[in-house]
């Protein structure tokens, strides 16, 4: 007796969001019409994009094994960006303006805009720009960055249910995309998208950040919420069908299991290897749950994930200098 698996056809598909414009080499994400990695029954025009996180000031809390590959460029965003793209092969970057936080240096909106401008000069990949965290300062910082970098198609991180109006307005005014962040809840993710749509934001320019946890810190809950977001999207819910971005590095390297040195926990083995495993395991799980963009900290993690994606999607993405990254993959006849 043979088992005949019928391909599942869904009513809806993901929106395709293009990050980067102007002087950027754009990267498109999303657009798939099936569950994540179900390449045997659905078409995925783009494979998940891999981003690295760089910072405006020295991220003193990063553990040594994460700092090591960035040695000499920490706190120098333009140089870090060059290394991330040229040496580590990031598809795009997340520029974390942590130094604008009032408790972490309180850098001015002008300094922040200059930092982002320097990164734009240094590389031509799209940027996600993350502010210091929700509040008045974030709004002034990101508004200034958005204005000074108009037309570059940045993704501003992040609008929240409590505070979205300023960022919605500047994203629309200066032609940027927006990341909407909601606390691991399918309804709140949808509410935020409705609020953004009501504020005239084109949802084809919105990414969902469902605020995921790291491995061991609620990852299974993140997984199930992301799965529900994706099922709703495929079921035809036009308010939940934006691609998902996950800030993996930030969460994975928070874990004690990733950070504790080997001399404190000899049975756990090398901290560097353990930490990278932790980041890889978190990122792969979230890609399986539906992340279209994962933001990583360790270049070794990016490398390993890239290899895994190659094995699934068949080929190295070819970076077409003129147009959108050609990393498409469609189910072949053989797969069907």
């Amino acid at each position, binding site marked *: 007796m043979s088992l005949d698996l019928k391909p599942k056809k869904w009513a809806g598909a993901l929106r395709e969001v293009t990050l980067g414009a102007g002087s950027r080499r754009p990267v498109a994400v999303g657009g798939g019409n099936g569950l994540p990695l179900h390449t045997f029954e659905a078409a995925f025009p783009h494979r998940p994009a891999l981003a690295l996180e760089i910072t405006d000031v020295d991220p003193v809390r990063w553990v040594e094994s994460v700092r090591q590959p960035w040695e000499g460029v920490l706190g120098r965003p333009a140089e870090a960006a060059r290394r991330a793209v040229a040496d580590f092969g990031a598809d795009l970057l997340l520029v974390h303006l942590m130094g604008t936080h009032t408790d972490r240096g309180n850098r001015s909106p002008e300094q922040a805009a200059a930092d982002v401008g320097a990164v734009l000069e240094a590389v031509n990949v799209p940027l996600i720009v993350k502010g210091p965290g929700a509040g008045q300062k974030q709004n002034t910082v990101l508004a200034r960055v958005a204005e000074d970098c108009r037309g570059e198609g940045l993704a501003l991180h992040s609008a929240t*249910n*409590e505070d979205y109006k300023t960022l919605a307005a500047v994203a629309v005014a200066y032609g940027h995309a927006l990341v909407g962040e909601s606390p691991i*809840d*399918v*309804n*709140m993710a*949808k*509410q935020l998208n*409705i*609020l953004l749509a*009501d504020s005239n934001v084109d949802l084809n320019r919105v990414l969902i950040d469902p605020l995921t946890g790291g491995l061991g810190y609620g990852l299974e809950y993140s997984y199930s919420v992301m799965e529900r977001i994706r099922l709703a999207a495929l079921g035809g*819910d036009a308010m939940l069908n934006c691609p998902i971005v996950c800030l993996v590095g930030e969460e994975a390297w928070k874990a004690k299991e990733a950070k504790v040195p080997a001399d404190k926990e000899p049975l756990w083995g090398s901290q560097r290897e353990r930490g990278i495993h932790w980041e890889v395991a978190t990122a792969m799980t979230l890609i399986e749950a539906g992340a279209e963009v994962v933001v990583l900290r360790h270049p070794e993690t990016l490398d390993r994930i890239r290899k895994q994606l190659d094995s699934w999607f068949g080929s190295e993405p070819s970076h077409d200098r003129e147009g959108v990254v050609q990393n498409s993959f469609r189910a072949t006849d053989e797969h069907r």
Partner: protein
Amino acid sequence: MPSHPVRFSPSGRSTSVAEGSSILRAAELAGEPVRAECGGRGACGRCLVRILEGQVPEYRVLRRESGFPQVLACLTPVHGPLTVEPLVEAQLPKLVSSDRYIGTDALSAWAPWPLELAPLVECREPEDLGVALDIGTTTLRLLLIRLSDGVIVGEAGAYNPQISKGADVISRIVAAEKGGLGELASSIRLAVVSMIGEAAAGGLDPGRIRGYVVAGNVTMIHLLLGEDPSGIRRVPSQPRALAFRPVDAANLGWPGRGAPVDSVPGAGGWVGGDILAGAVRAGFSRATETALYVDLGTNGEIVFGNADFALACACSAGPAFEGGGIRCGMRADRGAVDGAAIDGESGAMELSVIGGGRVRGLCGSGLIALADALFRAGWIDRGGRLTARVPGERRMEGKWGGAIALSADQRVALWERDLASLIRAKAAIFAGIRSLVDSLGPGGPSIERAYVSGNFGRYLNLPAAVGIGLLPDIPLGRYGYIDNGSLEGAALSLLSREFRDEIATYLTRVTYVDLADLAGYMDEFVGASFLPHTSPDLLRMG
């Protein structure tokens, strides 16, 4: 242990308390009305006082004005002589007795099926009286009824005096557990005595009262009868009893020699006689159509069923529907905004005010109508926050976010925080309804009739309640309004033994659904915490 004198100003009341007692305790002993809606946990801020003379610990001082420290009475110990001035108006406004019911023939007005006058207690003289009483967590209502013909001859309303021990059921139970049961019982009994006096003021003789029927939630009945309520808040809920034997009015200090006080039985710790009386009053026990009954109180109670079965649940909505927890909230009384319309073109807002005249505040039904109008006009977004469409002259900013001025002097305003309270309250109710109806599974009965009860009087704006997603979007013609199902059910029980027996029979068909046990309730709640709903198609229910 030394004790210290504490004097209250300007009332002049004074007492002395043991070293280390709280100022709130001193207020209780002195008879000074200080509210502590949170039950004295330092959460509600209603017991704020100013220290005019004496020393208080510096770490308790919240702020100083003109050199006088301000502290929370509940958290601040007395270590020496003090003179204290309460800062928050503690006297609850008196409930207006609108004489709404006087002259009503209760049986013909409220009986869900033809009932014969056959009082629960013997009626010997034509002027013999009975009392129907609804004990709510927030409000009390009482009817004096002539037993010989079932006509209402007197009525009274009051706030539940236990509010000083906490605004909700749980904080009352906690207060009882801390040794306050005797005080809670005597305060409610005394309040009823004064309501009887008020209701009888037109020349009626309370000595002629032959019997009482009381409906209330299970906790209120426990507290009235002086029974330990602590088992109610445990899981699973274990009240001392769901049905109590009638007690003699004299034991409660109530008038009427030998008059029995009958309490309507409950079906579970969170499904009291109030909701059962209301459901049977709505005709559930004989209904072929499946109906929904929603009591919009501080504790929202919902019944879904018909003659054969009923599911009931309770959800904590908070006091927003009764004007509580709203900065300019008030009862549905003269001066309360009870409706609103916004002209889409000109952006002009028109408010309707109970009794006309000056705007004094917002009642629950006004809050619902206003939120609906603001949402439709785009002045607030779906999360309940102000948008740029609010005209400049109405926009206010404060520590608690933005507000829309409702009076020219800006003293009455609707704050974003009030809208957040309303959205939470309506989400709790709607999620309860949805969870209850959905718990019967796909293909289960739909809502063929719906009854809404609550302290809205005649003012609930149904289209607005549906518009903000408080009530399901079913044809409006299926909705009926029951003014006070609990009180009306108590009156019918008093006048008709058949009705009272029917409640006792029907309660065996009622299944209590604990929303905390339903995996989907929290999801439903978050989904409903939006205007009108995160997925508006879920509002349509049959």
